[in-house]
């Protein structure tokens, strides 16, 4: 299956990835090949098979709903590029 240029652009937008115009044809080719390859799965008979959500078919454990983490905001924000008064700065969203 050949993906169109438009489809690849829309996937890149959904994934919030900027792809330059000259890279688009490369991704069109690569992603088409990958999708072609995984399409073999269509032929498998999976009637009545439950989709696997965990490799050992285990369920998630539950714990009491209590606070277990200490406040480490200052430590974690050392990795942020733009912080002020404990808040992360981003470009203005609301004018």
């Amino acid at each position, binding site marked *: 299956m050949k993906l169109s240029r438009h489809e690849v652009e829309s996937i890149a937008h959904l994934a919030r*990835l900027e792809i330059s115009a000259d890279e688009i044809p490369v991704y069109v080719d690569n992603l088409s090949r*990958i999708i072609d390859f*995984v399409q073999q799965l269509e032929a498998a008979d999976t009637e009545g098979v439950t989709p696997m959500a965990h490799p*050992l078919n285990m369920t998630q454990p539950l714990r009491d709903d209590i606070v277990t983490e200490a406040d480490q905001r200052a430590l974690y924000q050392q990795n*942020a590029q733009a912080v002020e008064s404990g808040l992360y700065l981003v470009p203005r969203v609301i004018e």
Partner: protein
Amino acid sequence: MHGMTLAGIARALRAREFSSAELVQHLLERIGRLDGQLNAFITVTGEAALEAARAADAALVKGGGPLTGVPIAHKDIFCTAGVKTSCGSRMLDNFTAPYDATVVERLRDAGMIMLGKTNMDEFAMGSSNETSFYGPVRNPWDLARVPGGSSGGSAAAVAARLAPAATGTDTGGSIRQPAALAGITGIKPTYGRVSRYGMIAFASSLDQAGVLTLTAEDAALLLTAMSGHDARDSTSVDAPVPDFAAGLGESLKGLKIGLVEEFLDDGLDPANAAAIEAALKVLEGLGATVQRLSLPSIGLSVPTYYVVAPAECSSNLSRFDGVRFGHRAAEPRDLEDLYKRSRGEGFGTEVKRRIMTGTYVLSAGYYDAYYLKAQRVRQLIAADFRRAFEAVDVIVGPTSPTPAFELGAKVDDPVTMYLNDIYTIGVNLAGLPGLSVPCGFVDGLPVGLQIVGRAFEEGRILNVAHRFQQETDWHARAPGGAFA
């Protein structure tokens, strides 16, 4: 001192043949002198290593444990407090981990000394270590060839005897395939055996931490120290951890070995196949019996993986937004521009390819056809293994279809690269433990034997590997030349 196993180092430290500080100094000198040819390390933590080694020497006077003062390198996917943790990506080139991964913490608590952080495919996505932002790693057996991936830096460092052991992670073969291509031992434990806390996520239902070592005995020592339940990883399994090293040496008499017919097809290099056959003879000589078996759905494991893994990766890597940590694009016009350019600039081609593949298979209208379909086929593949393990105790076969290939040989076609992991991927999909041990050479390049076991039977596959290594010396061969 280099070239010694962990078990040998532990004995020598106790016998005061040399100190931990002397050993660490020697290895740092080797890394400084030789790693320019390999590019196995992203960060070397020399000062901290020497300081920790001196503390270990003091602890050894009073006693200490079996791993006290023994050096190790960590794949740069594991968070190390106060030390750069890049995951092989420009995205995290400026990231200093605020805490330690559980694996790092447990091995340090056991007394081990971290030498540094090893190179890897970007976000562990790759089979050749060519997708790293820090450049490719070279194979010490032939510098024109890849060491495999994604734990390629760990494999090259151990094979070149720059570190006696290294941690790795394996999502589709990323410990076993580089171990095979570099002529060393590598184990991926059962899913959930080792905590994923602080291990940067790629595909959470497949990722598992393990080790690359010179022998199965060393792998057993490390696995005992790093395994076990961790409340900070919700998929960590609360099961008792045996002393894997204490279980080694058991007889293989009566062991039932399965040989997967589908793994012996045309894709397998004939010389590689001959090495596997010879290895089976050795195991038969030790009292094991070999029977052929079929895993009917295994042929679909690579396409299944390339739906499931990219889907999980696209979700996991959505956290990299240019806001809280990691690369941030300069002068963003608006929030969307900040997201898009930070991610577009921070991620390399293979990572973007996988994020987009994952986004596509999870998008409205395709979710059922690709993602749910793959999750159903995954169930069939796991069921094939379960059925096989009713008849046999372990499954043995090749780790990789060919020995190490040349740099650049497979970079143009992602699907050709993906097929490198054809023998290893099914094991991750089924959550089983698997390891690779050296079993011969083809044109001077090492090839690996893969041994797969039932869930939580790491002890059994380690024992098979250990007994094999007592009868053969493939694992003791080291690259010559500058690395001798």
